[in-house]
């Protein structure tokens, strides 16, 4: 099943499962369509978790490259978006872990945060939409991870605890701290 020669008159777009099946057979055009559909969702997750656009770009690229290789394992038993989201989240946490272990021996947290840009992205949203992301970028890393996963991505504290290999209580403490910091920033 290839989508490289789709008729211009064809009204119905292939769904994600069909595109994934085609991409799994090596159809890069189908894969690019998957990229166009999902990259902004994954970038939002990556940017908020990473707090830095260059790292978010890295996570985005690694996630899609990994997706390309993992596509033959997708059987269509779950929603493609959920399946890929899970893969990308693991990739994001792995990438952040690698960055953390690399820099943390040498750079205190403040130095990394100083490197974060004041403008997080170029999505052109209104002020309130940008404001939340500006605040998120100013949070300490652990508090940011927990806050994003719980408040923005909708995970429970138990799920976050498993993902980050911390206790549920620690997750709650980070979340509380993140909220307090953000409320201070709103003052």
């Amino acid at each position: 099943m290839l989508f490289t020669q789709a008729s211009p008159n064809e009204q119905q777009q292939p769904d994600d499962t069909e595109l994934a099946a085609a991409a799994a057979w090596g159809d890069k055009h189908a894969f690019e369509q998957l990229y166009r559909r999902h990259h902004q969702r994954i970038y939002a997750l990556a940017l908020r978790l990473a707090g830095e656009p260059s790292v978010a770009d890295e996570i985005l690229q690694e996630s899609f490259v990994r997706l390309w290789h993992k596509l033959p394992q997708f059987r269509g038993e779950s929603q493609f978006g959920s399946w890929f989201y899970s893969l990308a989240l693991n990739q994001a946490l792995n990438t952040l872990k690698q960055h953390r272990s690399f820099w943390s021996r040498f750079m205190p947290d403040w130095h990394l945060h100083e490197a974060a840009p004041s403008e997080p992205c170029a999505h052109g949203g209104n002020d309130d939409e940008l404001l939340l992301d500006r605040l998120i970028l100013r949070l300490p890393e652990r508090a940011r991870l927990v806050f994003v996963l719980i408040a923005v991505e909708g995970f429970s504290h138990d799920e976050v605890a498993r993902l980050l290999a911390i206790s549920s209580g620690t997750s709650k403490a980070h979340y509380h701290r993140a909220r307090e910091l953000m409320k201070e920033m709103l003052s």
Partner: protein
Amino acid sequence: MIKSKDDRLDSLIASAPRELAPATDNWQAIASRLDRPLPDTETLPYTEKSPDTEKAPRRLPLAIAAIAMLLVLVPLFNREPAPTDDGLHALIDSIELAHQQEVAVLIAPSQLAWQKVGFSDSIDAGLTELREAAKLILNALKANPQDKQLWQLWLWVQRREIELLTQGQRLPQGATQGDTL
């Protein structure tokens, strides 16, 4: 007042966009990598860790190959010196000092027993090359303290030195080539 801040924050969260567009299109970078094999490390789940004892034999040749590559590449970075930056130079010096202190602790006389083990020769060779590479990179970094790639190379080499020293310490203490089990 506190309540209103909570409400304001909740309102911001509720209106946060699910999608954000990156500043640059990443598709070309992704497409160019699709035909390459996926490195093993990318397939590891987030929490999976390989025991260091299993990694050591595989990582040493890789480290040495990487160092050889660095020795070839580093002279390329020794070009146009950037404007000096006293703050970065001070940071470089303090990191180098901290690293040397950490190395000194790891190779303290009381912890040298591992060096008697026969297969520590390969670790010694790796360390020697690593330190030579580190010197070259450090010189290049001091000339271009704002070069992020040089920073990463330098810190990577320092980390490898610590890892090799740590691996060496895990070898049987006091063993020699003539020891039998």
